[in-house]
């Protein structure tokens, strides 16, 4: 009887640990993904290619991640994307704890927990890029 009461609580804690581990994994993956995207952007790739690679490196469907690509006009001459300026690649992902802990909490009326992850990477342009969006 007591054990039957305790098991769900233990299970909940266990699932929350798993949930948190997965969230950390996602965060690390996203940091890696924006780094790879920015590196690709630095070599002259266009925004579509950068977005594709960033989503791929994050291991996510393109619909589940918002990738932002813009270019810093560092010399303030109105022309962003010149050689030596910076490409900024960011990702916006809303991570929802879903492995189990969240559902169990939801069953007790606790709102689903979501966190927004927004890693950003800046890399210096090694090729001139035309037609990019200024930051």
């Amino acid at each position: 009887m007591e054990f039957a009461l305790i098991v769900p609580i233990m299970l909940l804690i266990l699932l929350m640990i798993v949930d948190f581990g997965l969230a950390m994994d996602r965060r690390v993956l996203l940091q890696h993904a924006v780094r790879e995207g920015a590196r690709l952007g630095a070599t002259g790739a266009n925004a579509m290619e950068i977005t594709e690679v960033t989503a791929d490196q994050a291991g996510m469907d393109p619909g589940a991640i918002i990738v932002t690509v813009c270019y810093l006009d560092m010399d303030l001459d109105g022309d962003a994307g010149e050689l030596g300026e910076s490409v900024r690649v960011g990702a916006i992902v809303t991570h929802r704890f879903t492995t189990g802990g969240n559902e169990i909490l939801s069953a007790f009326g606790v709102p689903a927990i979501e966190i927004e992850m927004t890693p950003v990477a800046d890399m210096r342009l090694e090729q001139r890029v035309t037609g990019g969006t200024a930051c």
Partner: protein
Amino acid sequence: MLSDFRLGSVEGGQAILVFLIMLTVFLAIAAIVFDLGLWVSERRGAVKDADAAVFAGVQALVNDPADLIGARDDAAEWAQLNGIPTAKIDPGRQSGCSPDNSCINADSTGCDSVRPEAPWIEAKIRHEGKALFSSSFGVTGPDVGSLARACVGSPTGYSGLTPFAIETEFAAPPNGPAETGTQCQNNLDDDASGPDGVVDDGCPLSDCMEPNVPANPNEMRVAYGSVCVLREPNAAGLSGRLNLISNGCSQNGGGNMEHEFHYSSAGTCYVGSQVDIASGNSNDLFAGLAQRLDDEIDNGLCDARFGDNDDFDDFAEVFSIVGSDPSEIIVPSATGNVFADNDCAIDCGPAPLLGCPGDISSHRHHYLPRALDLVLVNRLQPSSGTATITGFTRFYLIGCYPAADAEATKQFIGEPIPVRYDEALNRCDTLTGDDVVIGVPIRSLAPAIEVKNPNRNLPLSIILVK
């Protein structure tokens, strides 16, 4: 009685005890997972910041290996853009960081044991690991920062090659310095190998070759901006064509050389590896190049980009000087210019891309019809059947002509070539034994070169070593 006593009075509440023990263990595990997770995440962020810093800083060293201050400042600027406060970066070049700070170091030599002559830059980026739970037990967050080092080096491999070779290992012409342009009229056996037609018998490759280093007059390199005859018929049946399939450079199905002259090879070739020499007629060469030029008319983007629309990709439409306005009128020069591709390569392959006409493979092709990326080899010897790759060089394709027209064309073009020339001469459609191919060397792609080679047409690459 004993068992009754145990059941009735002692065993109650055991599960609570187990629960408390397990809860303690679980919470401890949760705390460890939480803090370690944060440290790993911080560590990944530090790797990103360090990479961005050294990639930015090393670009200054590519332009000038002695510009250590510029490299350091650029690295610091990008570290700051990635979230490292300026106040947290030690000033100047530091091999060791002050407590709690990041630091950057650079030097003109000593990258590593493989590249002892290469300049390098190193960034030690400090990220403090957050200790949320472990701080309760007096554990402070560790420095989970990252160290990155980038060097300037020579690229050693290249893909997207036209299977066509140029010799580099022959003696400098004994009858004077390497010939260029209209100097090529003496019809001497310049490579001293007999009248084999392979190198320089008449008006040949050595038109655009020069000694690679003064200390080694038997090793040549292309002279950028000169007009080259890339292929000359010879009695041995060698025309510089290569079979890239044999050493894994090519991944195109069937090793169809006409296809590779058209779309370029899909594999990567490396300096120092062996490659098979092809012999026989050059019909595949001319057919493949003719298809390239047909693509220029049908699918070319350079003309459209610059509003010329004459179905002919002028030099200035295909290339621009690095860092300059792409629409700027330029002419190739033997010194001082480093050319970048303008963004007008044809991109075709499996859907949703544009279909590739006559494609026999399922590869994605990305090529500039006017740009031939050729293979430099040591020797094209009829007896050996193989050659060693010494580098790769990009050429601007002028066209293919009967031999007599080629000489006239070359003299007409002179040096430097004008932006436009007669379209009527621009063809690769004479499938006979005496066609020649003319091109202008644009830049070296992946040679085995010295890092500090003063020739600015020789590219250097950035190598992340840590």
